[in-house]
């Protein structure tokens, strides 16, 4: 057929003419700038201008079949297995015998016939345990995948450095989780991390400082605004109160009414003031429970804010309880 002959000529032309083409490797000789169209059924690359078949037997690198999320996992016909975990020792390419699928792989007692599982190095094992632990902790406070990935990377870096070798892996994992949350711009308080970890706040704090020194990084300071949305939604406060509380806290820090107070205590006191001025009042105890702050601490910070309460509220705030009727503690 005529087209076939043209293919041979085009192929020869492509090989003989050493014309440099910047992007693609093959191109139509009469239309070098035309973008080739792929005919997937025949595996051809065709020039749209003149219909010349320029490339023959092009291999389609897409997937062979489609997999849906509601399909049973065991039926996945993939021949390459799971993705390599880049976090483990640089990708171990040895062959492993997988779990048996059919009935023939189990002997009479129900044990699998082939029992060897490649023995991982103890380093890998420790890292995998830590990753599992990180996953569990992150799951408890519903952290997104990007934070978990960052935590895993931090843990790997710290583990390979071996500076903190004597510390418990769980403590390092918790501290890495804390740092990851900070770095992603959504800091969690130490007490929140403590709540999902078995390590004490003191130990996490110590590991945190050691890791920053080991990795030679630093983190941004926490601000009151980072915690407002979380605390307010946990308390079930409406958006207006949250905006008011954020405003109060920011103004308080700008005017430096609360020197030396932790931003979390200031945030808690601001939420208290905003909620007391609105229709949704919350007690100090409730706010203290959510924020992890003692209610005496809220009282202390509140006293400092009460002094200049009128200036702290946003101008368009609807007061349910006016400023002079706010509780004075």
């Amino acid at each position: 057929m005529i087209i076939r002959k043209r293919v041979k000529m085009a192929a020869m032309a492509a090989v003989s003419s050493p014309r440099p083409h910047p992007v693609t490797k093959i191109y139509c000789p009469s239309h070098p700038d035309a973008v080739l169209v792929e005919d997937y059924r025949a595996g051809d690359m065709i020039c749209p201008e003149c219909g010349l078949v320029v490339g023959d037997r092009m291999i389609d690198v897409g997937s062979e079949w489609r997999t849906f999320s509601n399909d049973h996992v065991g039926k996945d016909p993939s021949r390459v297995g799971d993705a390599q975990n880049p976090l483990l020792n640089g990708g171990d390419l040895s062959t492993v015998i997988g779990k048996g699928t059919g009935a023939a792989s189990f002997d009479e007692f129900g044990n699998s016939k082939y029992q060897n599982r490649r023995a991982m190095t103890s380093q890998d094992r420790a890292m995998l345990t830590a990753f599992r632990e990180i996953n569990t902790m992150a799951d408890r406070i519903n952290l997104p995948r990007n934070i978990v990935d960052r935590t895993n990377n931090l843990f790997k870096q710290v583990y390979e450095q071996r500076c903190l070798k004597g510390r418990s892996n769980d403590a390092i994992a918790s501290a890495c989780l804390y740092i990851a949350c900070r770095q992603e711009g959504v800091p969690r308080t130490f007490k929140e991390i403590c709540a999902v970890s078995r390590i004490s706040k003191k130990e996490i704090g110590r590991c945190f400082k050691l890791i920053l020194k080991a990795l030679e990084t630093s983190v941004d300071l926490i601000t009151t605004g980072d915690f407002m949305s979380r605390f307010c939604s946990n308390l079930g406060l409406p958006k207006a109160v949250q905006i008011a509380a954020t405003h109060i806290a920011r103004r308080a820090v700008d005017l430096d009414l609360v020197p030396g107070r932790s931003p979390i205590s200031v945030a808690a006191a601001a939420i208290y003031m905003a909620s007391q001025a609105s229709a949704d009042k919350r007690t100090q105890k409730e706010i203290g429970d959510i924020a992890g702050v003692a209610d005496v601490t809220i009282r202390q910070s509140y006293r400092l804010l009460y002094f200049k309460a009128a200036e702290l509220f946003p101008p368009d705030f609807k007061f349910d309880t006016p400023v002079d009727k706010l509780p004075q503690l």
Partner: protein
Amino acid sequence: MEAGSEPLPLDILITNVVCVFRVRCHLDLRHIALKGANVMYKRDEGKVVMKLRRPRVTATIWSSGKIISTGATSEDEAKIGARKCARCLQKLGFQVRFGAFRVVNVLAVCSMPFEIRLPDFTKQQRPLASYEPELHPAVNFKIKPLTASMQIFSTGSITITASNVARAAQAVEHVYPLVLASRKGT
């Protein structure tokens, strides 16, 4: 001492001087515990704690003859206290030779006449300064060449830890202009 238009005297109070020295002979701790005055024998840790009244120092004595003395308020006082402790041991019958006296650590306290904005200070002094309000209300500031570290509070108090008194004074001089830049009120 501070470079300013009016030289304001800034009092640096030395709260603690820690020093080590040797008596160059083995000591029988049991004998000291039984016969010595104002001593406490910590058998599980293998040491004897001797407290002197004047100067008010506490000396920790090991059986190897090495002694650590803490609680003095100046380097000279530390030396006097150390010698007094060695004299007490001599009176108990040991062949004591005072040697290798060395001041190891000095803790001093200083108060600035102004309050300090800690977040500003930390932002300017990264990475030497580290501030974690959740963990501790002060900024930890390290001066590497002087091997001195200080804790700076928002009220203006500064706690300095250095290897000797001269370095502690230098550390205060070093940090004064940095802290002045972040004072409250400007």
